[in-house]
């Protein structure tokens, strides 16, 4: 069994990290929790923002990433998605 995460798993892990921090996380914390390189994390974040699963907010204490309703929907549907992908052997 491959230990490499596929894209869906990585997206799930990123969103879980944010949910675990009450829906809002600093970039440095996310980098630590996501277990990705800075470049990869930036690519994923940009994609998730483009897909409206994350939003970027500026507060007095700095920049944060917040999970959106669409992101929460994906997170809750993750088990179904994972089961579907596994059943059809579509892991990448």
């Amino acid at each position: 069994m491959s230990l490499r995460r596929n894209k869906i798993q990585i997206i799930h892990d990123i969103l879980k990290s944010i949910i675990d921090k009450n829906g809002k996380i600093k970039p440095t914390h996310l980098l630590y929790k996501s277990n990705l390189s800075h470049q990869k994390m930036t690519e994923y974040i940009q994609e998730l923002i483009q897909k409206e699963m994350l939003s970027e907010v500026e507060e007095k204490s700095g920049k944060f990433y917040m999970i959106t309703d669409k992101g929460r929907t994906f997170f809750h549907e993750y088990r179904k998605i994972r089961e579907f992908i596994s059943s059809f052997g579509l892991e990448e």
Partner: protein
Amino acid sequence: MAHLIVSPYWFYGVDSLFEIIGMIVSLLIAYFSYKIYKYSSSKTYRIMSLAFFFIAISYFIKIITNTFIYFKILSFEHFVVMNQLVELNMIYTVGFVLLRVAFLMGLILLLSLALKINDIKIIFLLFFFSVITAAFSDYKYYIFHLTAAILLVFIARYFYKNYCEKRTGTSHCIFNSFAILAVANFIFMFVLLNNIFYVVGEVVQLVGYLVLLSVQVRVLKK
């Protein structure tokens, strides 16, 4: 023209009901794959969605074509005028060419995922040669179902390997479903010997789609 209708008289319309189920199941899988594609932007799920969408389209075409032909035949009185036969033959030809093209396109896209064929030129060639033989040859009925059966065997083999790796109930059902669909297409090849094989093939095909539906239900319940 003598083989325009392969279904026994008493089965008219029942095959369309069975195919509605096949169409719905294919659309469900296409829709869910598309959802995953929207989340991940991954080409794999887009191809999967397209594949099942083509399969659903093929069933839709078959339902429309068969329904139209059955109604036309049932409306015939004691004798049939030549232009009615020509009209029927045209509907049959156009409808069945379109459904065969759509169904084979769906299977070839699934096969490209199973065999990890990334080169679009190879996919095009597979499609071209399948369609030419299955849609336009003199023995199109046999060749179409033989081609579909062979493609389904390769697809089922991929799902079998997936099941051997995962050992889950759902992966086992996916394999079973495609193996059953392959068997159904082999059965359809014997239709011109006796039209009861059409009924058997339709029933077996329905079972295949019901197994696939059971997987979708289990996935959606998670």
